[in-house]
């Protein structure tokens, strides 16, 4: 099964991402869903906007996926990040993996989200009532 690495503008459906990693050899499947929360640093958040340097983000995420697949002998792997406006409660990122056992699935999923957050050239702007901030800048 090929790794699925995508950056999309439309809403992400976590059920579809989960279904994409289904594999009869798998004994464990893990999914991480990163959602927009309604507050940040004590202030109510209206929505967030993600921006990506898309060709590089795809390249970095593909490298990260390849590393995870090799290290944990994954069967299925999907990593999908959304760009544009993401409202409270909606998913900005969904990562799913299937592996032989639960430990590999959990570890790989954790590794993937951490590595994407650290290195994928994607930026989040939080929009509050009347103001907006780029997270990290």
């Amino acid at each position, binding site marked *: 099964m090929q790794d699925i690495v995508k950056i999309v503008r439309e809403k992400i459906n976590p059920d579809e991402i989960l279904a994409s990693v289904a594999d009869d050899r798998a004994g464990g499947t893990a999914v991480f869903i990163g959602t927009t929360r309604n507050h940040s640093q004590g202030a109510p958040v209206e929505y967030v906007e993600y921006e*990506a340097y898309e060709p590089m983000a795809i390249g970095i995420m593909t490298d990260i996926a390849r590393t995870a697949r090799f290290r944990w002998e994954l069967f299925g792997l999907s990593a999908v990040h959304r760009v544009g406006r993401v409202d409270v409660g909606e998913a900005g990122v969904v990562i799913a993996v299937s592996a032989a056992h639960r430990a590999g699935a959990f570890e790989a999923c954790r590794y993937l989200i951490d590595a994407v*957050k650290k290195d994928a050239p994607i*930026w989040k702007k939080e929009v509050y009532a009347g103001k907006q901030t*780029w997270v990290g800048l």
Partner: protein
Amino acid sequence: MRVLVFGGVREIVGSDSVEVELAGGATSEDVLNALAAAHPALGRWRPFLRVAVNRQYAPEPTRLSPGDEIAVIPPVSGG
């Protein structure tokens, strides 16, 4: 040389790419210095900016070649 900029840096410079004058043999570090000189508001962020050359993070300083795709990468915050 044309330099792609993103996120908070894009907003500070007011465009998604900027033309930066660089001498022959310039490096990725020269890109950041030139950008910070042209946009003083970027000065305080200078230590946190990374440069990507041809869509890969460049260890600083990396020698640039004509035709390279250069991008300034502010602290990332995806996920």
